[in-house]
Every structure is written in C-alpha cells, then in structure tokens.
C-alpha cells in the first residue's frame, strides 16, 4: 500500500503536449478517480506512474521516494488495461500465476496456489480456472485481468478504463465489485475513466482532467455541488448542470433571455450588473404553476424513477428532473423556478466559479 504524489509532471510527444504541470496526491488506501474526456491525458498519467513512459519534466513519488529511475517492475504497481492484456494460449490459471512465477519474485508453489485460489474466489472465476482465455466473455476476461493484478499484492492498482468495453449490466456489477474489492484490500487505487457515473459512484476523490491539466480535485460531493468552473460543471453529472447566462439585480437573477428568477442576497450587490453564468443542477430546477420562469417542453425522457424534461427558453435548453408521475406534453407551456440556494455562480467571461475565486 502506498502514497503517490505527482509534482509538476509535464509530458510531450513530439510537438504535442499531453500533460502540463500536473500535480496531485493520492493518499494511502484511497480510491482516486481521474476523470476526463478521450485525449485529456488520463492514460498517459497512468503510464507515467506505471513506469511505461518517462515524464518530460516533473517528479513522481511513491511512498515519498522519487521513482524517476525505477523501471515498471521495481515500482511494484499493477495495471489493468482496457484491452485486458491476457496472455493468449494460456489458461486462466496460468494467467493468474504469471506474475508470481517470474524469477524476480520467487514465490513458493504452495503459496502461488493459495493466492490464485483466493483471487479466483474474490472475483468469482473459480469455475473458469482451467479454461483458455480466448474462450472467455468480455466480463470474464476483465475479471481475470483484475485477478492478475490482485494475486500480487502490489503497492498501487492502476486501472485504465477497465469497464468501458463491457455492456451496461456487467459494468454496474463490476463497479460494485471493484469498489468492494478496494475496501476489502485497503489498497490504493488510481482509476481512470471518461464515465462520470463511474467516477461519482466509485471514487473517494476525483480529479478532473482537461487538455492535460488538472482542473479540480475533491470528493464527489465537492465536485458535484461546487464545481470550480463551467467545464467541471458540464463534465460531471448526468444530465449535466444547466448554465444560464445573465446578471444579478438586487435579489433577482435576470437571464439574458429575459426571465427573472429569485436569488438571495448572498453576494450582496458586489456583482450586480456584471455578466455571470448561473449553474443549476437539473434536480434543483422545478416546474410549478405560477413560477417566474416560462418555457416550452421540448422533449421528455422517461427513466422510470424520474423523467428528464428538456425545456426550451428562447434559443436555449434547460434540463430538469421531475417525478415520473408528472404528465407533460411536448410543446406544452410550463412555468419553472429553481432552488436559489443551490445556484452556483460563474464569471461570465472566465467561467470560474465565484465561490472558489472568493
């Protein structure tokens, strides 16, 4: 188990800068999720920590030691990749034994047997042990590849979108399994994903990565409730946070499209008249007869437990979650308002949250 720290990591490939001055810390036993779009630099970060790539600048510390000159083997990390990387032509058992049989480690045969059995039990793949890896389904392959990581008791688990190639049901099941596994092992996990649901549901901490730069780190609640800028606001949450541009006048928010919504006096008059962006989560937007905002129903998505309504105000769209019983017609005229306490204010120009700036 280990503590990881990245200090000012920069990585360039030719003229392309993949990571810019990246710094963050993962505490011992923490489940850290790196969230970002394709090409944001998530996988590069992982490969740098694993020792498969060398950083162009900056330092990586594992348990306080600078690991710049350590190879992948010495860093003692486990890496689970999206494409499984099972060794072909071997059985599941042979795959699980592989990391233990290397000369460098020298593990007693009795212990190998026991560790493989334990890993197989944990991941519920005992019935597959003698099967060839090419006869496995995607979910089974991914479990074997996770198994190959856990037989070893590495210092850190690095996972590169391990669930993204799986179908939805299995993804949910493995999500829970992985989280439980991490808690049982008490291990340090660095999990990379583009799926914000995975990030929210699994992470103790989330780091949001955009274009090779870390935008925000924090607990899922912090990231969700208090995004540092409009990018994070849109990146986390499904459907994402609504962003309404407008300004403040006294205790009222005036949207550029004309409607006025109530707003407290938390910010006083300091930002009156300045161009702002109001961020509001769909669940904090509600429909009510007599409410100040006016919109038309553009689309209704029924999710069973709730409905996601897309509202049209002039040229803009807002999304709100409403109870499943609510009856709505497309193009119906509705009135809406928000929960003013939940509104996040962003600067209209820079997109930075005023709460973080202040």
């Amino acid at each position, binding site marked *: 188990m280990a503590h990881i720290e990245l200090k000012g990591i920069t990585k360039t490939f030719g003229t392309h800068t993949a990571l810019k001055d990246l710094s963050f810390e993962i505490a011992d036993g923490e489940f850290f999720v790196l969230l970002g779009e394709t090409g944001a630099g998530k996988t590069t970060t992982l490969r740098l920590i694993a020792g498969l790539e060398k950083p162009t600048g900056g330092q990586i510390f594992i348990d306080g030691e600078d690991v710049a000159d350590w190879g992948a083997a010495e860093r003692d990390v486990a890496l689970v990749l999206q494409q499984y990387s099972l060794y072909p032509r071997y059985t599941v058992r042979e795959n699980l034994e*592989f*990391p233990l049989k290397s*000369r460098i480690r020298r593990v007693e045969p009795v212990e190998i047997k026991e560790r493989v059995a334990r890993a197989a039990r944990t991941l519920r793949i005992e019935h597959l042990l003698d099967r060839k890896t090419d006869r496995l389904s995607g979910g089974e392959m991914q479990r074997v590849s996770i198994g190959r990581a856990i037989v070893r008791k590495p210092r850190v688990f690095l996972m590169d979108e391990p669930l993204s190639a799986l179908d939805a049901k299995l993804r949910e099941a493995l999500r829970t399994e992985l989280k439980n596994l991490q808690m049982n092992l008490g291990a340090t996990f660095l999990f990379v994903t583009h799926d914000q649901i995975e990030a929210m549901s699994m992470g103790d901490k989330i780091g949001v990565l955009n274009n090779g730069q870390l935008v925000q780190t924090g607990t899922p609640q912090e990231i969700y409730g208090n995004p540092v800028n409009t990018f994070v606001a849109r990146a986390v949450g499904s459907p994402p946070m609504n962003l309404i541009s407008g300004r403040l006048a006294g205790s009222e928010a005036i949207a550029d499209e004309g409607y006025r919504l109530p707003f407290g006096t938390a910010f006083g008059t300091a930002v009156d008249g300045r161009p702002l962006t109001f961020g509001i989560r769909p669940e904090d937007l509600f429909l009510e007869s007599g409410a100040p905002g006016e919109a038309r129903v553009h689309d209704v998505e029924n999710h069973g437990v709730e409905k996601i309504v897309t509202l049209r105000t002039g040229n803009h769209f807002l999304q709100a979650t409403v109870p499943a019983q609510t009856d709505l017609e497309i193009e119906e005229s509705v009135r809406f308002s928000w929960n003013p306490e939940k509104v996040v204010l962003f600067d209209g120009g820079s997109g930075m949250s005023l709460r973080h700036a202040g």
Partner: protein
Amino acid sequence: MATVVMTSLDSKSRAASRGLSDIKIRNLFIVPTILFLIVFNIFPLIYSLGYSFTDFRASTNAPATFVGLQNYRELLNDPFIWANFAITAKYVIVSVTGQVVVGFGTAMLLNREIPFKGLITTLLLLPMMLSMAVVGLFWKLLYDPSFGIINYALGLGSFEWLANPDMALYAVAITDIWMWSPFVMLLSLAGLSAVPRHLYEAAAIDRAGPFYTFFRITLPLVAPILMIAIIFRTMEAFKTFDLAYILTSQPTTEVISIRLYKMAFQEWQTGRSCALAYIVLIMVLAITNIYVKYLNRVKER
C-alpha cells in the same frame, strides 16, 4: 455450389454485353491453369510412376519391360542410397537449424525502433532474391583456397573448404544459411510485429524478466509462423540440388537429388530413377505431414 458463392456478373457490364457469363469468365481463368498443370505436372507424375515399375532406359530404343517392385526393392536395400539419405538428413538439419537461429535472431534485432529499419531489412533480404546458380558460383569464389576472401578474412591460409570431404557439406550448408536466413527472418518479423505491445507492457508490470517474457510470450505467439518457415525450408533443403552441385562434387556432399540426377541423366537408369524420385516424394510428404500435425497442435494451444 461454386456458382452460389460467386458474385454474379452485373447484367449491364461490358463483359455481359459481349455474351460472357459468370461461369464463362470463371472457366476462362481456370482452364488454362488446369491444362498447364496437367501437361507439365500431373501427366509426368503419373507417367513416371508407370516407368518406376519398368527397366526403361531413355538412352536406348529397347522396349521397357515390367519388373514389378524390383526397382524399389533394390533401391531400399542399397547401402549407397542410404548413405545419400544420411548426407541429406545431415544437410537438412544443419542448414535449417542455422537458418532458424540466424533468421529469428536477426528478426529479434530488427523488431524495434531503429533508424533506417526499412533499408536494412531490404538489404538483408537481397540474398534470397538471387539465383541459386549465381549464389553457388559466387560462393565458390569466396571459398577459393588461394584467393578467396573468406580465408583471407578469417586468416585461415589456404584452407580447403570445398575440397575437404569433412568440410564440404558444411560449406554448402553455410551458403544455404546465408541465402535463406532472410526468408525465416521475414516470416519471423511478421510474427514478432503481430505480438501486441500491451502484452509486453503487461509482462513488464508483472515483473517478468527478459528471458521469461521471451519464452512465455514471444515464442508461443511466433511459433506457428516460425513453424511454417521451418516447413518450407525443410522441404527445400531436402531437395537441394543446384547449390551442392555447383559448389562441390565430393562424395560426402552427394545429397539425394544429386544421386537422382546422376542416376537419371548420367547412368540413364530411367526406370530406377523414377522409383527413387517416388521414394523421395513420399519422404518429403511424410516429413511435411509431421510438421503440419505439429503446427496444428501449436495453433490449438
């Protein structure tokens, strides 16, 4: 059945307007090839099978008389023929082993990011593209005891490569290794570059050493294609004629095809040489079959 899998001809195409149909076009392509095969391969094959049971001599006008299995019986009991087979076996083993070691080794060296990789690969492939006879003549000069560059470079004085009965077969094998290692290299390179990089990365993470990685990941994945290279090279080495014939005429380098050539065209024992050709054919088929069986087993694993 064949028409079912064929894509049918577009009725508006130019070929269709000339009155051609799918079947006609197919036959146009296939019939000449089949005719060629029958005239130059299948007919001589069957004809020589007939001769192998006679005492026919192509140098005389005497009619061939049927002698049954006598040719086969005598050949298989001839210790000299068996000596030829032993020489051939030794040659095959030395030459194919050498080609696999050198070829696969070069492929391992080339299977990485190096400058001028394409150029180096092309240059290394050149020997394979030369004519056997040219290679033979060149190497005869290279091996020459008085002015050959090999003796000069190795400082061997006037060592007799080709006239030395113990060395001559190895000299021929070395030439064959020089010429055909690139072939093994080419196939191995294809196999090596097909091994996904992430497997090596996974192995590095799993703390496998270089030898462990080679024997547990690289070799098993390259084995099937390497096996194909070995099959081809064994078959070729088994029927080697030109290199050995041009380089030297030692009794210790008389591989089976040279014996066959002498029997057929110097001693004019046409019937008997047909029988010998059949024996060689059956042996090559048998060896190839063993390899193919093994190849399938490797592939299944």
